[in-house]
């Protein structure tokens, strides 16, 4: 943003410097996260060698596992091997699933992405109109109602909401499936070739409508549950921004000139109000990767959140590190994108001002 304000004739170089600096810092941040996770995870005295060997494995098998997993080496050595593996693109083998970690991540990331995207779309579709309506009518009962709804969304415990929704839609109304990604019978009757980890992508590209519909049906409840927080967030932000913008002089001027209120609101006010909301959403995107875990657990959605949890609770160090890496990368990438977007938007607004 600082770069954008300074940029008049030297826009390109300013941007370039800005981006390079941010990327370098991002790499530093990611490394920092890895170091912290690596050593922090070892603080707890737990031995995943038994996990590798099996629940009733004899002591020799567990000893052997310890050797194979390099668990007896000093910590810095283990860290060195890990970084060395990383540079080759090798994230290690998950102690719990015995699969390469990157494979597990590739398998579990798409479902979470589907869930988050769906909840983001939902929160935009619902949150923005709510926020606008509340902002325009500040102080009225419409505003109070919207505020209550939005703040409820942010306050409700997701595990409770999930249970209530299941009670309502599954048991009482019998409309939606309880949990799961896609129904077994549908998957076996209309076989789908799993190419990517995402049923949405696979079903769409293979024209398998039944599976797609079934997937969508399973998506509804978890997406709604996950969307409760962002909806509240977006609605509140948009409302705040609307109020702020509507108080600006140029809005009053436009209305004084007889421009219809609705035109003024949607053409001028909304644009400025929405930008920060998008920013906030972008940031929450990165969090939802693992923050969606509770919902993934309750709805048996095979995403990376529940993978992160099971890895944590079994002290599956390679998997824990892998997840931390992925989330950190997402976070810095999203941050970078958001900052660029803000700079870009700001510049446009600056130009618009000068035209008028």
């Amino acid at each position: 943003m600082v770069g954008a304000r300074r940029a008049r004739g030297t826009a390109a170089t300013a941007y370039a410097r800005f981006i390079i600096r941010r990327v370098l810092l991002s790499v530093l941040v990611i490394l920092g996260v890895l170091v912290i996770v690596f050593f922090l995870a070892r603080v707890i005295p737990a031995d995943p060698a038994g996990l590798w060997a099996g629940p009733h494995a004899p002591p020799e098998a567990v000893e052997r596992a310890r050797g194979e997993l390099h668990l007896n080496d000093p910590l810095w050595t283990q860290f060195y091997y890990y970084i060395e593996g990383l540079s080759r693109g090798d994230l290690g083998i998950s102690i719990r699933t015995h699969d390469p970690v990157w494979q597990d991540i590739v398998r579990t990331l798409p479902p979470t992405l589907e869930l988050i995207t769906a909840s983001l779309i939902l929160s935009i579709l619902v949150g923005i109109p709510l926020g606008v309506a509340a902002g325009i009518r500040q102080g009225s009962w419409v505003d109070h109602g919207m505020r209550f709804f939005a703040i409820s969304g942010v306050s409700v415990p997701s595990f409770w909401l999930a249970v209530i929704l299941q009670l309502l839609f599954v048991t009482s109304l019998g409309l939606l499936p309880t949990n799961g990604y896609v129904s077994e019978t549908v998957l076996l009757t209309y076989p789908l070739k799993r190419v990517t980890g995402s049923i949405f992508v696979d079903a769409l590209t293979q024209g398998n409508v039944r599976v797609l519909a079934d997937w969508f049906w399973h998506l509804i409840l978890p997406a709604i549950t996950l969307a409760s927080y962002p909806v509240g967030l977006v609605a509140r932000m948009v409302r705040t921004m609307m109020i702020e913008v509507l108080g600006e002089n140029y809005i009053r001027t436009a209305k004084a000139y007889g421009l219809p209120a609705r035109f003024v609101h949607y053409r001028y006010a909304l644009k400025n109000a929405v930008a920060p909301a998008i920013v906030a959403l972008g940031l929450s995107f990165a969090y939802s990767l693992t923050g969606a875990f509770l919902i993934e657990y309750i709805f048996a959605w095979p995403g990376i959140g529940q993978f992160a949890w099971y890895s944590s609770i079994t002290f599956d160090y390679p998997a824990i590190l892998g997840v931390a890496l992925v989330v950190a990368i997402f976070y810095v990438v999203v941050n970078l994108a958001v900052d660029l977007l803000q700079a870009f938007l700001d510049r446009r607004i600056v130009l618009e001002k000068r035209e008028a």
Partner: protein
Amino acid sequence: MSGSTAPGPEAPPPPRKRPWMWIVIAIVVVVVLAGAGAYLVLFQPAPAKVPTVVTYATSSEMVTLDPSTEFSNSILILPNVYEGLTRFNPQTQSADPLLATSWTKTPDGMNWTFTLRQGVTFHDGTPFNATAVKFSVDRTIRMGGGAAFIWGAVDHIEILGEYQVKFVLTYPAPIDWIATSGYAAWIFSPRTPGWDTPGNDTVKDQEMAKWFEQGHESGTGPYMLDASQYSTTRVVFERFDAYWGGWREGQFDKAVILRNADPAQREASLKAGEVDITIDVPVLDLPQLRNDTSVRVLTTPSYRAIYAFFNTGRRPTDDPLVRQALAYAIPYDDIVTAVVGGLGDQSRGIIPKGMWGHNESLPQYEFNLTKAEDLLRQAGHPNPNFSLRFTYTLGDLFEQKFGELWKEKLATLGITMDVVGLPWEQQWTEAQGGPDTAQDIFVMYWWPSYVTPYDFLFNMFHSASYAYFNLGYYRNPTFDATIDEAVSLEATDRDMAFQMYSQAQMMLYNDLPGLGIVDLQNLYLLKADLRGFQDNAGYPLVVFFYQLSR
């Protein structure tokens, strides 16, 4: 953030309103989407024949698939795709013929000759014969992983004929029972890919292991694994048409094992019709489930029990009187009714009820707070105000509630017990650290690798297992000698072995390094229209899909 200046003294002209344009666009979009959707749905090729599927929802992941080294939860998979020489029969408590039709042994129990079934083929087309048996068991012994120790008595295997194989042992052992094991006793094809790699045996074994881990199998069982769909949480089976046992009307073409760690979700899935059979639903739901005609509740004896170990190496639990007092403070009946929902019995001795080695005439501790107080006084603690650390596996409801109830009773005696749930790895690591730093009370389940009391007594109380699974830190040479001898008598004099096992359990009753709390029952929930299911305690929680029909 926004703070822009006024657009200037002249307002821009308002746009012409054309709402009808947007309406037209909306209608067109809707029509196009609807048309595309209808086209796709109507012209979606219907499957030629809908396969019949049975689905089993279980609680644990199925990670390893190597029949020689698998020693964990994939036992749910392997008995459906592989077979062993024999299969355990829980009703008669003996070994039934499976891939072997009959067998003889020399009176000293050191030579076992098996006659094999003819007309059996592996899924890859290779015929089953004595070579396959030797190949499989040799590889298992050679790799030495998993439960390979069950073959510890085997010196070598001789092929006497195409369908005759002899096991020559270094000490007597009941090979017919050992071959029933759900671990390390599977027979697989000598033409398993990976065996043809150039190199020594170790290299070949590793290549085969890699092939297995990708989701393949090379067994003789009624079902085959669909490797393209294998994941640790979802396993798909297909019918093996050339299975030697033949197929009847109503059996399933496909089977699926799904994993859902949450008991409430498993129950919900079954009731919603998405799953046909599942295990371990919340016990508090049993009353309504029993009244629900669309499902069937099945409780069967298992060889699983909950055990509590006392840290015998540190105060205050190093005093046997204190340990006995603590044992008298456990509300056994409440645990059976309130915690386990009636699906179990208080343990008697160490061997679970229904398994050979369980002795009904062994004594039990009972809930008696007065006795507990007396014992504490005798031990020199008239006003006990020590505190104990009780750890259990986080997420396990039975263990947690057992701890809560025990804690409450101990509080009336003045003893504080801290009930701490930890992930298994953490809990076990703490206990393995030795009596000085370990918890005071350690709780876990046990179930046998193959049906023998030795598995329980050796792993949990033999000094060789000290600080491994012997987490009472018990060291008693007499006990060790008794069970070591008993196991060697299993092949030749079972009655004597039984007596010796009972003696060993009496030693444990008196010394009390640990005790069994509850012998659990298996809890299955099935759809009412599923027929043929029979639980086999020798293969914990395994569903043999071949039995099932609708």
